[in-house]
Structures are given as structure tokens and as C-alpha cells.
């Protein structure tokens, strides 16, 4: 079982089966790591916001730096109108980041390596952004699909392309994160398997690869969380400041 690089993505029930109607909402290892991530986020940021000292301690500095990092990211990409959505984007970034980072610990489960999780997040963002766009601009939001300065001959084609690209946003957003996580973890597992199968003689090369990949994957874990958050900001920017 351990040789299968995909077995790390298996979801299994922890504890009894819980059913609500026809739906199975049992507590699984995915649920466990979601709870772990959220609890550690809340713990860190609660500790980081408890005391208000003029000279922040380490955990306060961490919380405040993350705060300013995300707030700068939002104001850079979506402007000042996006301020009400700061808490959501902050939670989103932190959640994805912590889930990704928890996945980097051996024998853990990576929540974001499941397409259903990332798709739910992306679909929520997509629907939310679309609703915000229609609330802010009414049917004028549809102008998003009609870029200015395009020759009238090309317009039907462009509009179709724009609509397709808009509709593919949740898919691209979710698949990007999911595929990155899955590919990275699979690759690490495969190289880890090489270490065993090649033994003491040939195992050193895949081992060194594994070490390098771990560093790369930590980078990817951060980067994908960042990309996820910044794409959300960009979509939000389209909805808030309509100028295409």
C-alpha cells in the first residue's frame, strides 16, 4: 500500500459513520486536517492579537506581517473598494496556506490536494464575485465580456472567448491548486519509493531529489496559496472596478 503514491490521498473515516438524510458527513482524516489548520490559524492569530505592545513580540509580528501582507496584496490588485472582503480573502489565503503547509509534514493529509475542496472554494468565489458584480453594476456587469477597442468583426468571437474564459475561472482556479498539490506530493512519494527500491547503493540520488523537492514543495505550497488569493483578488477587482 505504501508503494502506491496515490494512497496518501485516500480519505478514510475516523470514528463512526455520521449520516444526515442521504448524505454521509462522517468525520474523516480530511476533516481532521481542516480542523487542525483552522485551529492553528485561530490560535496563532489570537495569540498574535492578544497583547498590543508597541514593540511586538514574535507571534504578534507574525500576525501583523501576515495582515499587512494580505492587505497590501488586496489593495494592490483590487483597490480600496475591496476592503470589505479583506477578512474573506485573508481567511482564504491562510486556510489554503495552512492546509498546504500541513501537507508538507510526513504522514499528514493534504486537504487542498482534493479537487472537491478546491472546487468548492473556487465555486464559492466565482459565484460570490459574480453576485457582487451584478449587485454593483447591474446588467452593466455583462460589459465585462465586451472588451473595448475590439473591431466589430471580431466582437462575436471575442465575446464567446471571454464568456468561456469567465466560466472556466472556477475550474482553472481549483484545478491549479489541486493539481499542484497532488503532483508535488505524488512526485515526492515516487522519489521516496525510489529510495527504498534502489536501496543503499542507488537510493542516494532519489533521496537528494526528495530533499530538494521538499524545499520546492514548500515554496509551491506558499506560492499556490498566494496565487489562489491573488486570483481571487483579481476576480474581485473585475467585479468591483469594471473597466475592461
Amino acid at each position: 500500500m505504501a508503494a502506491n503514491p496515490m494512497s496518501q490521498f485516500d480519505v478514510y473515516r475516523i470514528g463512526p459513520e455520521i449520516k444526515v438524510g442521504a448524505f454521509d458527513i462522517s468525520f474523516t482524516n480530511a476533516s481532521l486536517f481542516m480542523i487542525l489548520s483552522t485551529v492553528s490559524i485561530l490560535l496563532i492569530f489570537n495569540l498574535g492579537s492578544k497583547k498590543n505592545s508597541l514593540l511586538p513580540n514574535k507571534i504578534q509580528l507574525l500576525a501583523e506581517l501576515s495582515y499587512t501582507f494580505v492587505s497590501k496584496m488586496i489593495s494592490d490588485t483590487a483597490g480600496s473598494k475591496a476592503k470589505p472582503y479583506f477578512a474573506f480573502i485573508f481567511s482564504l489565503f491562510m486556510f489554503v496556506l495552512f492546509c498546504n503547509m500541513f501537507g508538507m509534514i510526513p504522514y499528514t493529509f493534504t486537504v487542498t490536494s482534493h479537487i472537491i475542496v478546491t472546487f468548492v472554494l473556487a465555486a464559492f468565489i466565482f459565484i460570490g464575485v459574480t453576485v457582487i458584480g451584478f449587485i454593483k453594476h447591474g446588467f452593466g456587469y455583462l460589459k465585462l465580456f465586451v472588451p473595448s477597442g475590439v473591431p466589430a468583426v471580431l466582437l462575436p468571437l471575442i465575446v464567446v472567448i471571454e464568456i468561456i474564459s469567465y466560466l472556466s475561472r472556477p475550474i482553472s482556479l481549483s484545478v491549479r491548486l489541486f493539481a499542484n498539490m497532488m503532483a508535488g506530493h505524488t512526485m515526492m512519494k515516487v522519489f521516496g519509493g525510489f529510495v527504498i527500491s534502489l536501496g543503499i547503493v542507488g537510493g542516494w540520488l532519489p533521496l537528494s531529489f526528495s530533499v530538494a523537492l521538499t524545499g520546492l514543495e514548500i515554496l509551491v505550497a506558499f506560492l499556490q496559496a498566494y496565487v489562489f488569493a491573488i486570483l481571487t483578488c483579481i476576480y474581485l477587482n473585475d467585479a468591483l472596478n469594471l473597466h475592461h
Partner: protein
Amino acid sequence: MFKKIYFQSIFFSFFFTREAFAAESGGMPQLNPEFWVSQIFWLLLTFGIMYLVLSKLILPKISNNLESRKSQILENIEAAEKQREDSDKKLKEYDEIISKSKLEANSIFNQVREKVLKDISSKREVLDKQIDNEISDAEKEIDTLRKNSAEKINKIAIETSSELLQKLIGAEVNNSSISAIVEDLSKRNGDKYYGN
């Protein structure tokens, strides 16, 4: 060598993984919908709770902290600026006072010096006059004394010599003859005693 091992390992890995896949009869566990509802439910639950706690409790506190720090730093900078201005002003005032008081001290010193010099000169004049007077008085006295002294000495000499003679000889001598002799002697010896 390394290349060979690398390619070999990839080859072997395909071999192994295929075997493993065959054994698991799985593909991607992500596409197995068995726990999708559970994952969605727990995702919404945990993320929702986290979002609520973060947005209602924690993030406002952090932003508050940041704002208060910012404002405190700004206030401190302002206060420092103000104090610097104050100290600059005070330094200027101090300099002014110093230069003013220097001028004043100079003028006072000059006035006092002039006054003192005047006083000294006037007092000196008075003293000079007094001294001159006293000197002239003394000179007059000396002159009178000198004039009188010769006569007195002559008189004393005459009287003493007459008394001497009386005691020595026991005879009464005519005063006039003695005075003639004394005068003669004093004239002769006058040069010796007075130097004139």
C-alpha cells in the same frame, strides 16, 4: 552512472506503480465521490467558523493594534518635532539673552569705569590740594622755626653761658658782652651747624 541509475529508477518506478495501481484498483482517490459530501460539509463548517472568528474577533484587533501603533508613532514623532522646535526657540532666546546681557554688562562696566575714573581724579585733586596746603603750611612752619631757632639758640647759649660763668667764676657777667661773644661764635660756627 547517475544518469543510468536515474533512468533505471524511473523505469522501475513505472513498473512498481503500475503493479501497485493494479493492486489498489484505484486511480485517483480524489475522484472517488464517497466522501465528497463529507469534505464539503467539513470544509464549509471549519472555514465558516474560522472566517467568522477571524473577521469578527481577531482581524479587527490586529488592525486596531496596527492603527494604534501607527498613531502612537506619529504622535511621538509629532511630539518630538514639537519639542525640538521648542528647544530651538529656547536656544534662540537663550542666545539673545546672553548677547543682550553681554552688551548690558559691557555698558555697565564702561559706565562704572568712567565714574570710578572721575571719582578717582576728583578725589586726587582734592587730596593733591590738601597735600599741597599741608606741605606749604609745614614749610612755613619750618621756615618760622628755622628763623626763630637761631635766635632761641643764641638766647639759650647766652643764658647758659652766663649761668656757667657765674657758677664757675662766681662773678656777675654782663649779658651784653656775652651775647656779643655768642653771636660772634655762632656766626663763625653757623656754617658748621646749618650748612649755609
